[in-house]
């Protein structure tokens, strides 16, 4: 009898040994931090060889990452990838968007399967340490709650015993449990991996409450059959700085992606728009000339880019404000969300970038 089982048992034992071995050898005493090994990745080289940028995004969230009627990817997050492609190749279409679920995006960035992760990812310290390099906050968000009007709930004080629908693998999930613990209330979580399933279940009445970043709630509500039946409560329970990230290990690539985001923000500040890029090249504002590569070196020689790389990025997608307004502005394609903290610092918001010079 034992003979028959021997091969199976052998595999089992070997697997167990390997696991215990890596458990014991690399973890000498308690939770000593693993030795930091510097990664060497040549992402820029791969991007140039491939001729396009692989962008980890999504196709299921109106405003941020979605498909138009022709199946073309667009959205606030996707446009950022296009800006990078335009800066590197001069072509905003040199982008391949890989749709990812919330739970998949971390490992995918860790293993450098995408060049940029631009999929409303919240920047946190542990993600920065584990996943990759976070570039520059592109959207200041916070977690909120959405409830149905007929539920009779008017504030979070009445949440005790509520059923809450939430997406797995998000910061939202943790904030939710912290919030209820802090306030000494009980709740029942209903957890799905697919964003669509979460809001289906909520709209269907499986949950009293759903929770996510407020921008996402606004986006989802706009897609409901009766948006007016749902209210987004005024309370914000967390900081969610949504930030594009790149894999660890390629400083040049990290710099390029960061500088493209700086350029979009600076362009809004300097009044450079998608429409007037060309005429602004003969502007009398020195900062505009520097941004558009007409005067001085903003770093392009060291990064191996063309002087007008940033101008290309701006002419491809427009400046930060234009991208925002295209999807979420007063006449946005997707829905209208007041810019609030996402105004340029000039206008009293938090959107701020180092100068291009």
């Amino acid at each position, binding site marked *: 009898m034992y003979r028959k089982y021997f091969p199976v048992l052998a595999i089992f034992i070997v697997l167990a040994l390997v696991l215990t071995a890596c458990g014991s050898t690399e973890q000498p005493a308690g*939770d000593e931090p693993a030795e930091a090994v510097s990664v060497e990745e040549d992402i820029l080289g791969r991007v140039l060889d491939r001729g396009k940028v692989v962008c980890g995004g999504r196709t299921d969230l109106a405003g941020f990452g979605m498909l138009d009627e022709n199946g073309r990817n667009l959205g606030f997050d996707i446009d950022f990838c296009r800006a990078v492609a335009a800066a590197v190749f001069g072509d905003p279409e040199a982008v391949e968007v890989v749709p990812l679920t919330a739970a998949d995006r971390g490992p995918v960035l860790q293993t450098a399967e995408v060049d940029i992760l631009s999929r409303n990812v919240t920047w946190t310290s542990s993600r920065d340490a584990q996943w990759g390099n976070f570039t520059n906050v592109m959207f200041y968000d916070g977690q909120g709650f959405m409830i149905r009007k007929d539920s009779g709930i008017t504030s979070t004080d009445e949440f005790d015993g509520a059923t809450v629908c939430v997406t797995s693998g998000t910061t939202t999930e943790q904030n939710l449990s912290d919030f209820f613990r802090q306030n000494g209330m009980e709740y029942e979580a209903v957890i799905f991996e697919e964003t669509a399933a979460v809001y289906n279940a909520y709209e269907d009445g499986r949950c009293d409450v759903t929770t996510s970043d407020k921008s996402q709630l606004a986006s989802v509500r706009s897609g409901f059959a009766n948006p007016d039946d749902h209210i987004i409560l005024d309370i914000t329970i967390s900081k969610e700085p949504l930030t594009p990230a790149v894999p660890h290990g390629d400083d040049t690539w990290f710099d390029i992606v960061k500088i493209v985001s700086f350029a979009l923000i600076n362009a809004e500040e300097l009044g450079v728009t998608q429409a007037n890029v060309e005429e602004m090249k003969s502007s009398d504002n020195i900062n505009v000339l520097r941004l558009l590569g007409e005067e001085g070196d903003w770093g392009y020689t060291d990064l191996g880019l063309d002087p007008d790389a940033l101008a290309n990025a701006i002419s491809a997608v427009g400046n930060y404000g234009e991208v925002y307004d295209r999807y979420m502005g007063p006449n946005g394609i997707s829905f209208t969300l007041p810019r609030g903290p996402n105004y340029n610092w000039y206008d009293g918001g938090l959107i701020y970038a180092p100068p291009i010079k």
Partner: protein
Amino acid sequence: MPHPFYKWKQVMTNNQPLISSKANIPFYRDERVLKIFAQILSVVLVAGILIWAIINFFKAADARNMTLTFGFLKESAGFPISNPPIDYAPVMSFSRAFLVGLVNTLLVSGLGIIFATIFGTLIALARLSSNWLLSRIALVFIEFHRNIPLLVLLFIWYFVVFGMAPQVKESLKWPGPIFVNKRGIYIAWPRLTETGGIFMILVAIGFLVSFIVFIMLRKRRKITGKDTYYLPASLGLLIIFFLFGLLLSGGTPFQMDIPYFEGNNFRGGMRLTPEFAGMFLSLSLYTAAFIAEVVRGGIQAVDKGQIEAARAVGLSQIQVLSFVIMPQALRIIIPPMISQYLNLTKNSSLALAIGFQEVFAVGKIAINQAGRAVPVFALIMLTYLSLSLLTSFILNIYNRRIQFVIR
């Protein structure tokens, strides 16, 4: 007349054999040497590939700074789990969260296996029935469930069937204290009171004692040949223990826990969540369809003559089934049945699509929250491997017991 060659061969072998000694054959043509060499070569190749893969994996993981430690299991998980079957809060550790997932997996696959086996067998019998309608209904059931993906079935049960349930505030109230709404099915459930423990202990002892008495008396009947009234005797014992327990617990070992509405939701009672119910139903119905075909195959493989002979000696329909057909069919049924059980257990990992949090769903969350993809996947693999090996081990022992004994 013998072939001329025959004579020649005989002469040759008698005088000097064709193959005189080993020395004549070079080692590279010696079959025994070549066999050993092939063995060594294949072992080296397989082991080499394995070792290369493992080393490569460790190198790559190291280069990407993906730590392969299991220390994170002790950290607090921080994420909620819906309706944990055992005590769980987000402050507890990742290993606890994993355990919650494991209990959920065991719960849904254990119950699923039991239900699928019973239901599948019934469907198989219906399929073989001479009643045209019954047999067609079974056929439709089997073909429907065998030919659509399990994931689709899950969505049908979870989003369509349970989606039709009314909102919480418009709950259906069925006769008796049963409430049905989108949050689940709430049933009044007897809960143990303070004195209930004594009652349960006495009933348990009663079961044990009457079982032993049952076995002993039945054995005596076999030996002595006289009736020992083993059935009434053991049943009587059980009733005595039951009454005694009732007396000691003051007459109220249980109290009905009736569900009631408070705040936003129903509380109390026994609750079946739509996630669990959807998972359990689709998993067991899906597997039942396969089991039905396995059972049908086993039954039909029993020689027709056996059945005719059994009928000829005057056995009833039920007796033919339980004493002649089933014992022989089981030998054929059990091995493919093991695969079905393993499939059911592994298929339970689809549950994350409808928000039922078994071990795979919890693992995927842990990957994200702890950022430790490799150790978590190793843990998931190990879990399913152990479950599968355990299931097939137990069933193989049973399988060996029911096979023909060759004397």
